[in-house]
């Protein structure tokens, strides 16, 4: 009788990708995880799981940045959509990051390592849970549940989109509830995007680690994209040696997360000590405050940023942002100064604002026509895409017609 394998082969299926050994190597040549990293067993009713525990002392620095026990600032809480009135004591926060079997998502992707960090009296304590075999996932998740049971806040980097939903799926598959469903979530990624959109080329954790914290990983680290294959190789061969690098990688992710958390909390104090920050940082923090509807603080930060002469590429944007807030407070003189300065460098938005100001506020239609015409003239030499240019052009022409009408038939 022909085997399924032979039949599949003759149907054109390439089975076995060549580089894989047909059978796992004999037991004695294996290096189980216990012999590679120094860890312990957690005994749960659903079985045992393996974990590693380390303490990073209170004076530890990740690059330039110390990791100190600083409670999340009110602004950070508000930005994460959390009620700032609830006190998020640092003792309630757990920092989490997972290593997974893939990045594509879906119910076939699982976490095989979960790093959990939190501040204790002796320093920052890091626990890394490790899944020795996918068949032991229930125990692994039960152990996770025990480790995070006492925390109310989970702090992650992109955990809202990735780690937490993934763990939720794993819990559903094992028919129990994810502990994170009930916890408040502080995800630093959205804030990091806002803060470093202009200042840095990348907002990936690894990039922020280098550019913001001033930290470089050692050669022990392995790129995140190689992580799944290292785990699969371990599953096949039973040799855990290469997993050392994954433990290091995950530990650094958590430490950097804690350091970044510290750094962002400090940044949020910028309104009180503007002198220690750069023009870019002040403006970025200003945008956070503006997003949260704290226009007065935001305006102060923009003004402070402008006073520090930001790079020419961002100057116009800050001028307009500031002017926009000034307009809200009807501080027309100052707003006017911003628009005029921006328009001198050919900023069309500023010209339109000036036209609006003269039309609606001053009812000086001739001046408004002048600015509309200036905007139209500048449009051709602007870097807009043709679709946007056409839209803006048609809007401006509309405005121009209306202004001419208004000028000839004054109310």
């Amino acid at each position: 009788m022909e085997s399924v394998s032979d039949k599949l082969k003759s149907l054109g299926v390439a089975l076995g990708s060549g580089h894989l050994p047909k059978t796992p190597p004999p037991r004695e040549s294996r290096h189980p995880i216990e012999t590679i990293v120094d860890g312990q067993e957690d005994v749960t009713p659903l079985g045992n799981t393996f974990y590693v525990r380390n303490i990073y002392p209170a004076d530890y620095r990740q690059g330039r940045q110390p990791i100190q026990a600083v409670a999340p600032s009110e602004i950070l809480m508000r930005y994460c959509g959390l009620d700032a009135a609830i006190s998020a004591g640092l003792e309630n926060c757990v920092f989490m990051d997972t290593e997974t079997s893939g990045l594509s998502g879906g119910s076939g992707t699982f976490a095989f390592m979960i790093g959990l960090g939190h501040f204790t009296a002796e320093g920052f304590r890091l626990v890394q849970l490790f899944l020795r075999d996918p068949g032991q996932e229930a125990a692994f998740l039960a152990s996770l549940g025990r480790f995070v049971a006492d925390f109310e806040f989970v702090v992650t980097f992109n955990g809202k989109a990735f780690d937490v939903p993934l763990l939720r799926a794993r819990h559903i598959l094992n028919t129990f509830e994810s502990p994170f469903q009930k916890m408040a979530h502080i995800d630093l990624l959205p804030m990091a995007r806002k803060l470093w959109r202009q200042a840095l080329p990348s907002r990936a954790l690894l990039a922020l680690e280098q550019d913001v914290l001033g930290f470089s990983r050692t050669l022990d680290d392995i790129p995140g994209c190689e992580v799944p294959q290292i785990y699969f190789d371990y599953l096949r061969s039973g040799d855990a040696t290469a997993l050392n690098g994954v433990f290091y990688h995950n530990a650094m992710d958590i430490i950097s997360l804690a350091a970044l958390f510290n750094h962002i909390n400090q940044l949020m104090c910028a309104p009180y000590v503007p002198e220690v920050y750069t023009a870019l940082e002040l403006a970025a923090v200003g945008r956070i405050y503006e997003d949260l509807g704290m226009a007065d603080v935001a305006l102060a930060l923009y003004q402070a940023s402008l006073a520090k002469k930001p790079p020419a590429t961002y100057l116009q944007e800050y001028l307009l942002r500031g002017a926009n807030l000034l307009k809200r407070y009807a501080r027309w003189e100052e707003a006017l100064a911003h628009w005029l300065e921006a328009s001198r460098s050919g900023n069309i938005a500023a010209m339109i604002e000036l036209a609006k100001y003269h039309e609606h506020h001053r009812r000086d239609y001739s001046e408004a026509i002048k600015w509309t015409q200036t905007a139209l003239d500048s449009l051709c030499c602007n870097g807009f895409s043709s679709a946007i240019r056409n839209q803006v052009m048609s809007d401006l022409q509309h405005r121009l017609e209306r202004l001419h009408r208004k000028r000839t038939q004054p109310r």
Partner: protein
Amino acid sequence: MAENIVGWHTEPPRAAQWEPLPERLPSPLITALSRLGIDRLYGHQRVAWEQARAGQDVVIVTATASGKTLCYNLPVLATLLEAANATALYLFPTKALTQDQHTLLEKMTGDIGTPNTRIAPAVYDGDTPANKRVGIRNRARLVLTNPDMLHTAILPHHTQWQNFLSNLRFVVIDEIHVYRGVFGSHLANVLRRLRRVANFYGASLQHIMTSATIANPRQHAERLAEKSVVVIDQDGSPGGERHFLLYNPPIVQAELGIRRSAISESLRLIDDLIIHDVQSLVFARARRTVELMLKDLLSRWQERRERIRGYRSGYLPVERRRIEAGLRQAKICTVITTNALELGIDIGGVDAILLVGYPGSIAATRQQAGRAGRRENASLAVFVASGGPLDQYLVRHPEFLLEKSPEQALINPDNLLILLKHLQCAAFELPFSKGEGFGSTSAPVVEEILSLLEGTGEIHQGNGRFFWSADVYPAAQVSLRSISAQPVLLQAQVEDSFVTIGSVDRESACWMVHPGAIYLHEGSSFVVETLDLENRRAELTLTDVDYFTEARQRVDAECLQILSRQEERMGTRVFGEIRVTTQVTGYRRLRWLTQENMGEFPLELPATNMRTIAYWISLSSAGLEQLRQTGSWCGESVSYGKNWTRQKELTRRRDEYTCQVCGRKEVKQAHHVHHKLPFRTFDDYEQANQLENLVTLCPSCHQRAEMTVRMRSGLAGLGYLLHHLAPLLVMCDPNDLGVWSEPQSALGGATPTVVLYDNYPGGVGLSESLYHAHERLLNQAKELAQNCTCMDGCPACTGPAGELGSGGRQETLAILNLLCSEFAA
């Protein structure tokens, strides 16, 4: 014109069988129905209600516009109203149909229920905006989608559907006859995955299916549901008097059997319908034809331009909705369409339907013709036949179109290649436990395949379970439209970039998308510029030519395993597994309308191997002997031209009056002179009678040689016939089947053999069914060959004459007479 109407069938009006609304129908539904003007049900709707409410899995098989949707909507909505958590999943084959049904459902459910019991039907497909998806997953209780979306988006992310799946009660599958062959075999496996995942959440599903009329609704529905299913086929809807006319365009070239084109004849008929202001739908097979006909009509009917429209995929949705409304409100009189209007879209009924050529299946013909008829008014459907063999067969045998359909929808869910892919997807979705089967696939087979995947590293076995262990999202790599382990992507150049318009199996690439091939996609023609087999990619460009292409291939078939065989005195029929080696050697261009040959082009492509399922017929030596004795096989009935006597003499002298096969010298009687390439394959006698093409043979060797030539042509004619008739029985495209014939085939132990095989690795069930329909198929073939009016083979019977290996109507008929003689006995 009247003489071209070869059949006129009148179906008497049919009164509705009314039934009262069920007593237990929830009152909000009664209100909703009355708002739609419904206060009673047709018989089949009531039966469907009873059966579905009793928990039966059902398939409803009734005519177009017989109110099939109510058959599932009533029991589903009733359950959803009674159980505040219950959910249902609807699958439709097209997005357009999904939208149409969604609109209908919204009308029905509009204000039903309290905020807690609201049903909120929602479409979840590729067009659903990302920001609406979460809400649908968490809240919708009735989700409308399609098989591809279920396969790639819902099942692999089933944990996001925990709520929906935990409470899933119904899966409704509309138009199941569409799911046949490869697509159907895939869907059967997607449904296995759905049931497996639902089962994980503690839900068990009830299937409600609908189908157009096919020969095997129960079998097909049961293969999809893997449960026994109740068939509801007593149509209780009313119908007006229906006239079905068969129109065969006049013959313009008798010898070659060429008729006037169906398109130009149809245009004449449409003129009459326009003059009499009869609202009509005209179904054409290709988008190109739609545009062609539309252009012609608009140019001649300037003053009525507004009332004549085209409709096909590629039109914007708003445009389509406007045409649909125009039809319902009778603002539009004539619509030329592709099959885009065939499935379900609500346009009410029209007065007349015109089918320009056979749509490819009886089910589609009936669905299209079923669009005629408004309430109880009389209606008309006209089938205008093209010159193809199926069209020509059907105009002579309208009973196929009018009576019980012979077409079977066939799938093979256990095709190993398809099964393998869905086991990968299923393992990704949920780990397999030891001893777990997959639908009707037994646990040992599942385990064997999973162990193989363990060998490739995709599966890890631990704690008695099989876990997916690869950084791959398997569903993304499985297309429900193809079967091959190695698909070739078809990329069309659109402006500056390449867009993937589809894929073909590696096994089919050489003959389907060889350089120069015309590839049809959604009715548009593309020409293949390059085929890169190594990188599995073909580059195509949009074109506008009036021909299609047909690959020439050399085939060799080797038997791997006989699965069943039946031996008769004259011949043997077998169904088994074979390996087909195909070498595409060239292609020819054939004119769309007439199938006229526009030229041959050579190709150099590598040979392809494919393992598949086949059905073949081999003549026995007794059969051969009988043919040899039949007069029609021998004798020179043709005049070989003016120089024949002289050339004959020269050949014998050259060959020293000796038979060039057995070496016997002439004694008394002169030896024969034989054409190496048959005389009729040449355009003129001087070419045919060149000395290089002639050879001296003794009478008995000559008879054997002649026999081989005739056998070759008879077998080729038989192959052509069977290949073109088979889709009538097994509902497939002719390209889904491969055909090959040979006078001395290894398959039949060096006897003359014709083989038909599934053109997909592993097979999709076509050949097996043909094997069982052997007698019927051969009788149909014999009749068609007998009744054709051509001289010696034409596109409508045994293939165009005058080419090597085809034509040969007389020889084909001799073989068919021989084989069919056994059925009578």
